[in-house]
């Protein structure tokens, strides 16, 4: 059985069906990319996997390491190793980034039966991670995402991912808003995390990201369904041709 198995997943929002039968199996260590036009349900899929309220699963199952993911609360999923890098990370006034990071890290450690992280150890950990991702250390003293630039928010998401060490990471348009240099930094951050027991689902509009983080599989999501899957060359094809071909099929 695959590490993550999405079977015939149908999801509605406010009575409107957005996902219309997604099937996707991902093994440990694989990197899958999803591409597709705006509004076809990519973020919806990411939220359903992360456990956000307001998405009604009308059919289908998701197995994560053999367990039914959809029956778990968002926080349980996270502690079990699911991570979502948000397309639009939220600004949380008054909550210092460092306070938040520590709370998240300790929640995970408690689950693993570990003691809370020691203050110095935490500081050193954050220092080295922020350095790797070229994030100014001062930023973690600021309220979470408040006033962060678009690119800073995306880097902060990757920082959180690297800190929480997930087994299944969904990256929703983490490349959008990043400048050319930042894209390289963030990509090498992600590549550094690639390992046989970590699976990535990378949502993007641009082939450029996938030339840095080379995926094992590329899927095309149109109209709430995966209409084609292939290897990295599919991304190059899409970059050249766009989605017209699939959308015609969809309309037909």
């Amino acid at each position, binding site marked *: 059985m695959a590490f993550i198995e999405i079977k015939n997943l149908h999801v509605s929002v406010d009575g409107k069906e957005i996902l219309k039968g997604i099937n996707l199996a991902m093994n440990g260590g694989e990197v899958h990319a999803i591409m597709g036009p705006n509004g076809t349900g990519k973020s919806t899929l990411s939220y359903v996997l*992360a*456990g*956000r*309220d*307001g998405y009604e699963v009308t059919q289908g199952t998701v197995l994560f390491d053999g367990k039914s993911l959809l029956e778990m*609360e*968002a*926080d349980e*999923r*996270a*502690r079990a190793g699911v*991570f*979502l890098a*948000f397309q639009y*990370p*939220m600004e*949380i*006034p*008054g*909550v210092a980034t460092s*306070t*938040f990071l520590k*709370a*998240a890290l300790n*929640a*995970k450690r408690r*689950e693993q039966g570990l003691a809370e992280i020691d203050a110095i150890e935490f500081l050193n950990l954050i220092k080295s991670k922020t350095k790797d991702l070229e994030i100014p250390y001062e930023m973690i003293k600021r*309220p979470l995402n408040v006033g962060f630039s678009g690119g800073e928010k995306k880097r902060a998401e990757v920082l*959180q991912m690297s800190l*929480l060490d997930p087994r299944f990471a969904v990256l929703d348009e983490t490349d959008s808003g990043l400048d050319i240099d930042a894209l390289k930094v963030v990509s090498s951050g992600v590549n550094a995390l690639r390992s046989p027991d970590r699976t990535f689902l990378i949502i993007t509009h641009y082939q450029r990201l996938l030339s840095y983080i080379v995926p094992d599989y590329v899927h095309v999501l149109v109209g709430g369904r995966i209409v084609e899957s292939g290897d990295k060359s599919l991304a190059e094809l899409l970059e050249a041709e766009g989605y017209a071909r699939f959308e015609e099929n969809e309309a037909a």
Partner: protein
Amino acid sequence: MLASKRTKRLKAVKTMTAGKLDGKMAFDDTYANAVGALPGANESWVDRLRQTSRAILGAHGIPGPKTEAWKYTSLNAVANTPFIPATKVDDVDLSSLPLVAPFLENAIKVVFINGVFRRDLSDEFDGLGVGVAITPFADVLNTSPNSLKDVLGVFMEPGESFTAAMNTGFMEQGAVIHLSSDVQLEQPIQLISIGASGSVPCAFHPRFEIVLEAGALATVVESHFGLPGQPYLSNPASEILLGERAILNHYITASDDSDAFHLGRTAVSVEKNAKYDSFILSLGGGLVRREIKVRLEGDSAAATVDGAYGLSGNQHSDILSEILHLAPETVSNQMVKGVLAGDTRGVFQGRIYVARDAQRTNGRQLHKALLLNRGPEVDCKPELEIYADDVQCAHGATTGEMDPGHIFYLMSRGIDETAARALLVEGFLDDVVLSISDEPARKLVLKMVKTWLAKQEILTIGET
């Protein structure tokens, strides 16, 4: 010279008599008789001040809902409690005090129990240096009342505020803080007022007079709290005069016992280029009413009047704020945030007044309330009254529940729902607390918010 200044100022403040009050009586003759003779009683203007205030109380009684300023806050419970003057309370057990006291590190502490100054519990505050004087209020009234002529009763307006009238009618002890020109006091002063009723409910009316001469600088923290037991009524009043270029950081924390009543008022006059920087934290008490009136009297005078409150159980909190821009280029900033749980009620009445001459004035006011369930009620009445034409004034108010998106964001990182809510509530309040400019005071307030949250069961209630 002094007298004319007082008269001039009094005229400027133009004490108005309150409108029609539909009051009941408390603090009647029985209470007044029990209070007896008070310090400064043989100084005629001090005596007159008290008598006038008592006459106002006598004529109007305790205000009811027909009085605009008390529309949202009922004083029935206060009227129906037979308080005795706190000086008559038997000695109270203070053994649990260190556990509950929000002490400010490093401050000069001046302690009052039931309004009575306790030198034994206070820090030494004689000889703080040239130009710095902290003196017990009663001592000043007894020995040199005329030194207060410029300020005492000038800004408090007993005719306009029941809270002020009650304090002024019965003021007895308290503190006078005076800084001479250009004296900068680094060490903060903490005025600590502790309520603790004996076997009967008691009331006390501490009076703080703070005068900073031109160019002086000080930080004063007022902390009001109490010990569990019979309800008490804490009725403090602070009257503040800031000379040109003076800067006062004035932070009030009110975390009284849950059965207690707290009716407090701050009246401030800010002269040219001076700055009044303030914060009110209100977390305790059954009924808390904080009034503040700031008069920006001189060109470019500035005031920050921020605050935060947290309510649970059946608590009721009422903040009444008036900021008067009376001179050109004056600036005021106000952000008040409240968190409400249980069956509570929060009231914010904020008025910004801009006089015709106060051109190029800048006034900002914002009240934000966060409701943690469907029980609480928020009443917010902002008022802008502008007579100048070249001004920038903005006000706003929001009342809302916690953003489910924010809760999800935190939970998606493994933080459980209760902890996520706690972080968000704390963040909501900290957002304004972090603007406290004085670091030790900021830390104290942050800690008090955290402690308050840790005690509340409010955070789990919102779960479906």
